[in-house]
């Protein structure tokens, strides 16, 4: 018997007797012979708990993780500190092991968490309503497109800034083929979305305009001005935002967007090589009934006690089937719980202080790197947590050299932006101290010199 089952030989016999079957094979008789697997699965035999742990630990050791090196990688997910209470609470059985709260009387904990999460996201984004989570960032962008196409009754054009995360743009393209929609891209100018090009791209067939703030290059956009330009054509305006910058950066609600969404990993989430995290989705009140995903609502029980339930379920697949506003069922409830605990931990003052610290350290790192020989800024737009530089040396080579110093220097933009072949995106969090930044600057300077074939400074005769 496996260690997760409990059927002894005596149990099996007693149970078969109760069923009236001779053997377990009898129960599988209904599978036609021609589709039965007549051999064992070709998989390795089971491991003891110790063996399994050791095997997984051996695999884990072959990954250069953010405790083993100093991490300046960002590009949508960031090395922020995860408070101890996030793990302690999310690992509790009562949150870890239930299903979606279909029986509200025994799911008040999870439902209230959803309600608190919605309130927190609504506050952060400055929009009237929010859902209880989606899968993650880029697929939330595609979900907003589905909403917009429904809301604008047949419009089929989606306009996206090139400052939108490349994974979001690619996901939008994938989904758009299903929606029968076309994605049109608007370029960047000086690191920010080209407002003129945006205004020209929006027409009477445009269902939605997609922006990101800060954008993928780290630049803080003039979101309000872009939104005003986009709205003239009657398109919905949709902004992907970084929730942890919203203590200092103007909120999407204040900028007049219809929908704000994004990746929630920075709110107390693990890096986890890209998931699971959560996506969040907020909008003005008018889109509440088209919103994707679960939404908790406040109500009372038969005795008048305050309680929470899944609200507006007539939007959802299990009720509305082909007429649902989205197909999502299992979402990212546990990660969203981590998010709301993190926001309570950080608190009203903390989110502002953290934003200010990131802005100052990012400015410092940006100036420090730009002053190096062979390094210059990719753009000079304002930044808050991430910035881009150009290197006068092959980026991948530089990154390999810096990695030898135990530093992940940043994200090579050439992976997604061929026009920025030698550029590097560098992310700063509260975990990257001034000392880390100095180490990065020194290592980068050495690596750029070495990659240009110049001798290291120590070897240059005085």
């Amino acid at each position: 018997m496996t260690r997760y089952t409990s059927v002894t030989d005596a149990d099996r016999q007693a149970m078969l007797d109760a069923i009236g079957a001779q053997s377990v094979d009898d129960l599988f008789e209904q599978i036609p012979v021609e589709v039965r697997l007549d051999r064992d699965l070709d998989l390795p035999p089971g491991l003891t708990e110790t063996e399994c742990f050791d095997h997984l630990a051996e695999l884990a050791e072959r990954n250069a993780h953010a405790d083993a090196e100093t991490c300046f990688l960002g590009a949508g997910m960031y090395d922020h500190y995860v408070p101890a209470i996030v793990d302690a609470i999310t690992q509790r059985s009562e949150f870890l092991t239930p299903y979606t709260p279909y029986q509200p009387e025994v799911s008040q904990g999870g439902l209230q968490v959803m309600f608190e999460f919605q309130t927190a996201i609504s506050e952060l984004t400055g929009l009237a309503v929010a859902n209880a989570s989606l899968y993650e960032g880029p697929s939330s962008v595609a979900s907003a497109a589905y909403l917009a196409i429904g809301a604008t009754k047949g419009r089929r054009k989606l306009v996206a800034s090139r400052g939108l995360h490349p994974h979001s743009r690619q996901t939008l393209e994938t989904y758009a083929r299903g929606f029968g929609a076309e994605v049109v891209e608007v370029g960047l100018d000086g690191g920010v979305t080209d407002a003129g090009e945006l205004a020209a791209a929006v027409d009477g067939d445009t269902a939605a305009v997609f922006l990101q703030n800060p954008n993928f290059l780290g630049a803080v956009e003039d979101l309000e001005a872009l939104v005003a330009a986009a709205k003239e054509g009657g398109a919905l305006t949709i902004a992907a935002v970084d929730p942890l910058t919203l203590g200092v950066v103007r909120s999407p609600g204040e900028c007049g967007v219809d929908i704000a969404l994004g990746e929630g990993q920075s709110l107390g989430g693990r890096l986890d090589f890209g998931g699971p995290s959560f996506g969040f989705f907020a909008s003005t009140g008018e889109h509440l009934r088209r919103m994707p995903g679960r939404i908790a609502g406040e109500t009372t029980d038969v005795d008048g006690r305050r309680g929470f339930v899944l609200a507006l379920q007539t939007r959802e697949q299990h009720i509305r089937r082909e007429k649902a506003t989205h197909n999502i069922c299992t979402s990212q409830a546990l990660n969203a719980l981590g998010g709301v605990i993190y926001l309570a931990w950080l608190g009203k003052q903390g989110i502002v202080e953290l934003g200010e610290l990131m802005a100052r350290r990012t400015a410092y790192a940006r100036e420090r790197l730009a002053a190096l020989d062979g390094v210059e800024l990719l753009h000079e737009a304002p930044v808050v947590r991430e910035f881009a530089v150009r290197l006068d040396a092959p980026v991948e080579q530089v990154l390999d050299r810096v990695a030898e110093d135990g530093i992940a220097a940043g994200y090579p933009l050439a992976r997604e932006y061929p026009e920025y072949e030698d550029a590097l995106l560098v992310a700063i969090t509260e975990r990257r101290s001034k000392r880390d930044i100095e180490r990065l600057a020194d290592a980068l300077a050495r690596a750029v010199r070495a990659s240009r074939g110049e001798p290291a400074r120590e070897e240059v005769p005085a």
Partner: protein
Amino acid sequence: MTPPFATPSPPPANADTPTAQQRETATTIFERSVAGRRAGSVPSCDVPERPLDELIPRNLRREHGPQLPEVSEPEIVRHYNRLSRRNFDLDTGPYPLGSCTMKHNPRLNEKVAALPGHARLHPAQSPKRAQGALELMWRLERSLAEICGLPHVSLQPSAGSHGELAGLLLTRAYHTDRGEERSRVLTPDTSHGTNPASVTMAGYEVVKVATDERGGVDVDDLRSKVDDDVACLMLTNPNTLGVFDENIREIAELVHASGATLYYDGANLNAIMGRSRPGDMGFDIVHVNLHKSFSQPHGGGGPGAGPIAVSDRIEPYLPVPRVVRSEGGNGAAPTFDFDHDQPKSIGRLRGFAGNFGVFVRSYAYMRSLGGDGLTEASEAAVLNANYLLARLSEGMTGRYLPLAFDRTCMHEFVLSGAPAKRELGVKTLDVAKRLLDFGFHPPTIYFPLLVDEALMVEPTETETRESLDALADAFEEIVAEAERDPQIAQEAPYTTPVRRLDEASASRRPVVRQTL
């Protein structure tokens, strides 16, 4: 919460003496906020403290910060601990939700997922420096390919419904590549709600296929609907009635003859691991719910993951990036990489490479059980379901809550509460609510739609015979009690943190956030 099973006498059935939990008014974290309190602190500024105006122009900045709670750490811990106690959970008692596969979630999997090499690995790390993660993904892909009987796997989709959308977009890409345009997708009337919802999202029209008297696809109805405008048939097998479709080969032949693809909703894969494989049945595309068959905890509604396995003809269209393995040569170890260069690919479905933390847990689960253990898990799941079915067919439960389709079941079965409703005035909802007082999570109710007053029961392999007996005893006691006094069930539950909630007004006049 009330303790699970072993209830000596029926739990209280009156609302006059509220429990301690019931007396406690729900209070949100925002309502606990007091100006000036805080939990977390931010490192002090170690770089020049320049005025923000110099860094980000004022018109791009937020004037008033968001109204997040102001609470201390002890308050946060106590708040969420108290909230957690207002949840029922699988670690506390049986959770026989049909189609959801609420099996034990091994803690080993949590432990290995938390290793820094997994939990602290940045997704933009160069693949050269993430070889362990890529190898884990590759091995998981190979294992799923073997279990599903289909050679190619993408781990990218985030959940079952995401896998369904992927499968439909793959179908579209496949037909488009062949110069065909098809507009309709067939789903049985017993299908999960996600199936038709995914069909619409993928830009197809849903056509329903009827169910025959044995609980399988009505082959004649299918034959009359399959033509060259049909892109795909989506099936669950065993289906949501818990029975295996005996005509699966004929169905596959009909679908393939029309040029459509056959899609397997893997929600019920837990019934057949090592016993039968969707690929051998003729399916082209399969999604697997790692949070069902492969023990990822459900988390109160996620995270999950919905990898897809496909046949050779669908492979060129799989999402990018793909995980690829290269032989090392000269005795060197193989290396792993992401391949983004797949010209026929449908593209990306999400950011980065999927819910990696879920992959770690499910991979650890598969390695713990091995091939034999996975087969044994399915066998025990089917044995447990049939045993529970036998127990529930006895006595008054069998009379008032009979089996909807009288056949040997696979890993789950569907009862109909129609007689209880008709003869006792006790609805399936009432039975479910009364089960809460007995310390059990109820089965899935009112699904599948074609069964009147449906109760869909899936005990999973990790329940003991004793807990199944206790569940059967509770059902029997509830039905017996209802025969004496139907009002008890009609007004249940009595012992839960709140009692029946007004769901209608929560949707009519939705309050979905707190006013601050």
